């Protein structure tokens, strides 16, 4: 196979070449610890603060509200465990959804083992939570609502503004895991009433191993990683200057080009969806037709199983996935697809194709052509398919 089609941008993205260029001087020349006092450190210190300001700008936040972390998982853990500790006296109840990423899920399970109660809100067939159900779930001891901005498997975008409003009315903190949304759809923490927001560099063409947590001013979130006085004493550890600079560059580019990229991706996305729906029988689109990330396509093909599908796509040079990359070792069907009501064996035959602005229409055609053949081939082998 000679050509490679990368269509798994929800797993990770290609580092923007400009972001790489921005990082390079901080990998090579300006290597000082930004916390040092000498003038040689001012270059890196200033770069970090400019990065903070740039990211804050994309969210309509203050630079002092952006805290750098090692990625989305750390941000999610910090937000949840931090609020749990901060508000323990007020209550021990957290509300989240049934389709969160494992970084939220597992953290909730951890908190459950430590005396907290968690309500996992149901979602509808498109993967949206019901704001009325959220209201109904609120108790006097509810301290946090954590609902992801957009889902990593099916791309569904939640009614964030409504959730923010409900949270505010009830004076409950609102965290959103925006790892898949940040850099892809416009987000204003102010307008949406978001108190805490997680993001991860490598999901928007920044580098891996760096992310951030937005923490609204006035929330005295305790540390997850204790130690040195970095990040106003809230997140210890020598700052990953190149990573931070690269992430900020990617964030700026993503903000500038958001409309252009999103239009292009939406067009390709809808083309891909339409061709699959028209040309492959028993193919079900998962997620919402409109309220979905511009780059997300997710289908279930009845009678066939995901892994076999992926291997055959791979053999045709197509990099795709069935669920989230970080659980690919697991045999369990996606909790997201089960939550939107798919039966077990249908959830098993799902395919996630996540675009970037670098994909082309020609690639979409190649993918669909191959897909038609592969699905047919696997169905012929399937004991469930009696055509």
């Amino acid at each position, binding site marked *: 196979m000679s050509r490679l089609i990368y269509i798994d941008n929800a797993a990770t993205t290609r580092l923007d070449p400009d972001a790489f260029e921005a990082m390079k001087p901080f990998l090579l020349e300006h290597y000082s610890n930004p916390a040092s006092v000498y003038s040689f450190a001012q270059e890196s210190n200033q770069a970090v603060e400019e990065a903070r300001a740039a990211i804050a700008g994309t969210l309509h936040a203050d630079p002092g509200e952006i805290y750098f972390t090692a990625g989305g998982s750390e941000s999610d853990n910090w937000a949840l465990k931090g609020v749990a500790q901060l508000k323990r006296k007020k209550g021990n109840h957290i509300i989240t959804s049934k389709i969160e990423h494992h970084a939220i899920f597992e953290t909730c399970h951890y908190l459950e083992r430590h005396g907290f109660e968690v309500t996992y809100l149901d979602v509808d067939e498109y993967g949206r939570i019901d704001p009325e159900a959220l209201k109904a779930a609120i108790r006097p001891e509810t301290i946090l609502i954590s609902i992801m901005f957009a889902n990593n498997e099916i791309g569904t975008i939640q009614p964030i503004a409504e959730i923010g409003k409900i949270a505010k009315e009830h004076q409950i903190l609102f965290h959103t895991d925006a790892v898949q949304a940040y850099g892809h759809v416009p987000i204003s923490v102010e307008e949406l009433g978001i108190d805490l927001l997680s993001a991860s560099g490598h999901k928007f063409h920044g580098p891996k191993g760096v992310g951030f947590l937005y923490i609204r001013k006035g929330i005295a979130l305790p540390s997850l990683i204790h130690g040195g006085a970095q990040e106003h004493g809230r997140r210890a550890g020598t700052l990953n200057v190149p990573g931070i600079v690269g992430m900020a560059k990617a964030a700026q580019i993503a903000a500038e080009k958001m409309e252009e990229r999103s239009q292009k991706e939406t067009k390709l996305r809808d083309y891909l969806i339409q061709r699959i729906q028209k040309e492959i029988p028993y193919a079900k689109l998962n997620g919402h037709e409109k309220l979905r990330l511009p780059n997300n396509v997710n289908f279930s093909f009845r009678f066939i*199983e995901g892994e076999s599908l992926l291997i055959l796509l791979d053999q045709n040079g197509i990099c795709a996935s069935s669920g989230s990359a970080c659980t*690919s*070792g697991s*045999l369990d*069907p996606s909790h997201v697809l089960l939550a939107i009501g798919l039966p077990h064996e249908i959830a098993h035959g799902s395919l996630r194709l996540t675009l970037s602005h670098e994909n082309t229409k020609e690639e979409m055609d190649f993918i669909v052509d191959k897909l038609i053949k592969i699905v047919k081939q696997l169905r012929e*082998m*399937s004991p469930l398919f009696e055509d």
Partner: protein
Amino acid sequence: MKYSEKVMDHFNNPRNVGVIDQPSGVGTVGNARCGDIMRIYLDIDPDTKVIRDCKFKTFGCGAAVATSSMATELVKGKTIYEALKVTNQAVMEALDGLPPVKVHCSLLAEEAIHAALWDYAEKNGIVIEGLSKPKTDIHEGEAAVS
């Protein structure tokens, strides 16, 4: 998933995919852990008890497809008594091994053959020594083969 070359060969070119019309025995088993399903058809010589033909259909992962393919290859030409000794270990060895999380998939093939043999025995009112009523669902604990 890192599969051996043998596995990938059998996955890409599965042997004996299909259906046998009026089979001597059919067995279908499912894996409760992953939800995958395998069906095996046997054509058995009534006199010699030799498995003349064997076909499969599988809804499952790469390892499931490859083990189905290999298992059918291994039992073809064997008597039903010999076929009984084709364990999942034997199938895995013939495939140069499977990743640890995929060991349970090979049990599916073993169980599907047993189920087809059981079906044959029942239909013909005979008893195959050493063959017990197969389960239709394989549970995780049973897959703890190293």
